[in-house]
């Protein structure tokens, strides 16, 4: 009888140990979420803000007279979006997202921006000055197209804190400027308010 109880106890212990070992080896749980789902982890600048800004600005820009009233798809380039907030925000991601959505519309063409010029210059130099390429196939120096418009703007924020509440107000401003005339052809802003309570 004692022997039987001992064997049973031993079996149970072995089973418990195996379950514990398996649980230890399995690691953190990973699951895919909806990239467009509303993110409310905290009041800081997040993915939902990025998506809201890009969507609102693209829609407004495509309705502007400079774009919708143009016979041919105008050539635009991206300039700086200044980060005037106290947070670190990669503003290039915002303009890139706007550019992608504008490109998909087919109503705008984009020229390489200043930050992309290094690669463009090196490619032209390689084709034109290395002497390795067939003349008729070379992308010739001096034929790059200048942009009619440039997109530039800024993002600013006002943050207020109490013991239990954190209130953040973002305002994103975007401008479309005619490079030749210097005239502001279009401007719009997107405001976002986020409040976090304990």
């Amino acid at each position, binding site marked *: 009888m004692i022997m039987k109880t001992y064997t049973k106890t031993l079996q149970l212990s072995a089973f418990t140990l195996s379950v514990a070992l398996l649980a230890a080896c399995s690691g953190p749980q990973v699951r895919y979420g909806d990239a467009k789902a509303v993110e409310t982890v905290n009041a800081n600048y997040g993915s939902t803000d990025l998506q809201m800004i890009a969507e609102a600005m693209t829609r407004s820009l495509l309705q502007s007279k400079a774009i919708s009233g143009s016979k041919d798809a105008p050539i635009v380039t991206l300039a700086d979006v200044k980060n005037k907030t106290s947070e670190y925000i990669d503003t290039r991601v915002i303009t890139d997202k706007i550019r992608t959505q504008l490109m998909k519309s087919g109503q705008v063409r984009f020229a390489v921006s200043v930050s992309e010029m290094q690669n463009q210059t090196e490619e032209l130099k390689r084709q034109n000055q290395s002497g390795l390429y067939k003349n008729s196939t070379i992308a010739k*120096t*001096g034929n790059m197209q200048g942009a009619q418009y440039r997109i530039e703007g800024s993002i600013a924020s006002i943050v207020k804190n109490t013991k239990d509440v954190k209130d953040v107000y973002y305002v994103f401003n975007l401008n479309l400027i005619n490079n030749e005339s210097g005239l502001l052809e279009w401007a719009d802003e997107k405001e976002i308010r986020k409040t976090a309570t304990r």
Partner: protein
Amino acid sequence: MPLMKNTLLAFAGVSLLVLAGCATKPPAKEQTIIGQVPADPPKNPVISAETLKSASQSIAVTDIYFKKEGKNLVFIEETRNKTNNNITSTITPRTIEVDADKANASAVTGGPNSSQFPVKFTNLADPKSTAPGAAPIVTPVDTQASSNSSDSETQSSKKSGYEAKMEYGELRYLANPIRGLLIKSGYKVVQAKATVAMPNQGDEYFDIVKRIKAGDFGDADYILYGVLAEVSNTDNVSDIPGTKSTSHQMTLEVTVDFNIIDTKTSQIVASFVASGEGKDVQIDGRDTGYKPSSAKLMKLASLDLAEDVRKNLASQNFITNNPGSAGYERNLKRRVDDDASTLKVYK
């Protein structure tokens, strides 16, 4: 009642006839040629569509005339020795600058890289230039010194001044693309005689009416002649924003003043200024010591000049906006008409 019926039938018949009349389209008078852009009809009152159709107009295109005005700095030292009754004089040009900046910069002034141009700049260091009659007009600015001894006397004088030099000539190589576009537009292009500058040539070099009367342009109806306003070579290096590279730009730019004159009436039928630019761009060219090809720049500048001429001629209605369409047909028609095999003999 039958009267009503007949009236109704009559009205119906008339209505049908009217409808049929409205629905009928008039036959097309002109046939469009598929695959060709219709040319704008010439609007110039001198060169009407009728005159172009009835007879192939001929035009002579001169090479581009130029007049080069330069200043040569002359510095002459004259030493005069008087021994008894014998006087000897030695004239030594000491310093000569041939407008160095312009001479080196401009392709037509006889600079070091312009041997292909038919221009020769007079070198005053040549003994002939200081011969009597050829000596420059000089202004005394320096001291005159003299020394006496018992049997000889030496006088030396230093003189300096500017001598204005004029060069007249024709620039070849630039006008051929213009001739080409006029051929495409349906004009018969006549070869003009070259104009040779005479010694002590003046502005009568540009007297086109005199040349027409002298028969330099054969039976041409019009003369397109251009006078070079300026040639400039630029060599600039600039940073490319957003990169570590520089852009080395070498440019040859020509600006020419053009006139078209009717040989029969001496009336100017078109007048404009056109310019052409030949550009060679090298990325980081300064670092690699790149030297541009003058021939390439000249070709690009002449093609660009011809394009500007085309725009100006079209805007002044001398040629159509679509050279190669109706003009080409006219030109082709002229060639067919000129072919001996198509000659018809009327008795």
